[in-house]
């Protein structure tokens, strides 16, 4: 960018954009792009669906990265929080289906109710994150992993046994309020929050915990407090992702939020690089589109239908092997803690330095 040799994030655009505008500049750029995407994709349901799935996975990966990457904890129950968000938002929307805000046009009223449902889901997920985090974050890293895993399983069993959540059959008929613009609005929000945290003093404390918890505590970092807060923020966005997901798929059931889903998100974060927000985004896009791409490739090649189906089966063992190979060959993931602009080739525009 314009200021060579300058090393902090806030200085990058300095001198060009008035300070008052700097904070909301990304929104001003993002809004027209989102609107354009919405118009262009209106015709193709499959593209809309795929883009929404990619967006939801980005939200999940970036939010998990706050806990697993920045704070150095290891949560493997992210799908549990996603399930909380999906079910709470789904039930809220279902019960508000007949309600319309009279002072607004129907479409706008629907979107307002959708936002309310999403926030309800996110808040409940955050609350669960707090409940899980408070006791378990006092524990060592590997205990935390197993407790988060256990939490995910408990959520699944609770859903399977609750009449209001449709038991094993799941919830169907949730109004399809979601749109690409809405999904990517939240993508934008989670990325903004993650990047802001990474650069703030709060983020510095998280990095300190990640590098050495004992040393961080000795330096006066309230480790439990910071870990719980990271957990709450992360699970809030997981809940939002779940809520969005519930509003564009025809049915949600406990099978969508198993250990497998959690692992998928973990693989995205580890592949992208523990601590790299853009890495998580790139990995989420790549790992979501790759199976789809392979499936349509095999389909187009006219290979026997079984091969295209096998893509889904083979995905899981490949994820497992991918984790092993990554840990052996490149334990920091593709980007490490660097961001995309730190690893771009020299001739492309780049920021001078990442945050870490």
């Amino acid at each position, binding site marked *: 960018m314009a200021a060579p040799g300058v090393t902090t994030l806030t200085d990058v655009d300095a001198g060009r954009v008035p300070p008052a505008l700097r904070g909301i500049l990304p929104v001003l750029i993002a809004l027209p792009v989102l609107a354009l995407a919405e118009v262009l994709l209106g015709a193709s349901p499959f593209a809309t669906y795929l883009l929404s799935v990619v967006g939801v996975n980005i939200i999940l990966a970036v939010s998990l990265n706050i806990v697993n990457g920045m704070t150095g904890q290891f949560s493997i129950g992210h799908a549990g929080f996603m399930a909380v968000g999906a079910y709470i938002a789904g039930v809220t929307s279902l019960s508000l289906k007949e309600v319309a805000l009279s002072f607004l046009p129907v479409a706008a009223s629907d979107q307002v109710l959708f936002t309310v449902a999403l926030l309800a889901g996110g808040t409940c997920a955050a609350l669960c994150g707090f409940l899980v985090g408070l006791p378990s974050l006092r524990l060592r890293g590997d205990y935390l992993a197993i*407790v988060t895993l256990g939490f995910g*399983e408990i959520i699944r*069993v609770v859903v399977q046994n609750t009449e209001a959540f449709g038991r094993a059959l799941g919830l169907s008929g949730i109004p399809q309020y979601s749109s690409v613009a809405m999904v990517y609005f939240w993508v934008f929000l989670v990325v903004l929050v993650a990047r802001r945290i990474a650069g703030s003093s709060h983020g510095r404390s998280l990095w300190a915990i990640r590098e050495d918890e004992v040393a961080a505590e000795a330096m006066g970092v309230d480790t439990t407090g910071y870990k719980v807060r990271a957990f709450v923020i992360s699970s809030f966005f997981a809940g939002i992702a779940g809520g969005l997901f519930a509003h564009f798929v025809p049915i949600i059931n406990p099978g969508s939020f198993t250990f497998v889903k959690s692992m998928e998100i973990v693989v995205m974060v*580890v592949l992208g690089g523990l601590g790299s927000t853009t890495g998580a985004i790139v990995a989420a896009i790549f790992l979501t589109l790759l199976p789809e791409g392979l499936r349509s490739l095999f389909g187009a090649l006219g290979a026997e239908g079984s091969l295209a189906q096998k893509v889904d089966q083979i995905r899981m063992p490949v994820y*497992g092997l991918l*984790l*092993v190979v990554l*840990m*052996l060959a490149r*334990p920091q993931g593709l980007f490490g803690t660097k961001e995309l602009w730190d690893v771009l080739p020299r001739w492309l525009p780049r920021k001078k330095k990442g945050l870490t």
Partner: protein
Amino acid sequence: MSQLLQHLINGLAAGTIYALVALGYTMVYGVLKLINFAHGDVMMVGVYMGYATAFALGRQAQRSLWGVVVIFAVAMVGCALLGFLIERFAYRPLREKPRLTALITAIGISFALSYGFQLDIGFLPGASPRAFPEVITPSEWFIIGDRDVVIWNWQVISFLIAVGLMAALQFLVYRTRFGKAMRAVSYDHRTAALMGIPTDRIIALTFMLSSALAAGAGLLYAIKDTSVSPLMGLYVGLKAFVAAVIGGIGNVPGAVVGALLLGLVEEFVVGYAASTWRDAVAFAFLILVLLVKPGGLFGRVAAEKV
């Protein structure tokens, strides 16, 4: 009253099997400070090895005493080899790296095994569960009252096998040179290496031992359930891990007590509440124990040194 007794017996029978698997977690954690997530899946592979052997033996031979011995031997030796390979190629290169790295690797292996076995390519068995052959023909050995309390022969046999294996393990750990070396490595593996103990070999042997135990436990579980599926490792493994943590991970008697407790709790939930809640209870129990005693029932909470 008789119902209570029956649940008690079933719970203990399930608990002894969990205990065998939990011992593997605890031993590996003792020497490596690593939660071997793939342990349950090694167990699953062992069960499939036993399954294949039983079929190779044929219907007649698999029910004879020697058939059963051969099935157990093949599965246990095969799993020991698998454990050795996993340790050698996945964990050993990471030994000096941060612990999280090894944990992620373990999760990766677990995933690769449990979902790899769901493919139906080549020798892999495919996702659907299969019936495990009745290597022990079930019969009722003890009947109290008017069939109020029934103890099956496989319950007694698996209890005896499990207790026998545990006794052998106890002897090995506390009465042999290998056991002494293992305890030394567990105490401090750098110092142990300085004292001339071949730590790499001890760790590899510990892995093989725990994998062999897992195979034995898995076979007992498969005989009890009369089925085998690629996902059994994930669930039995998780339960056993929960048992090990409840007892205080790294603590051998603790793992046994934790496993028996877990077996009983699960059985009572199934018996008196609803079976659909069974999977949640293990974890709720775990979280409860960790809340009250973060080191498990018998574990010490080691102060972290810098």
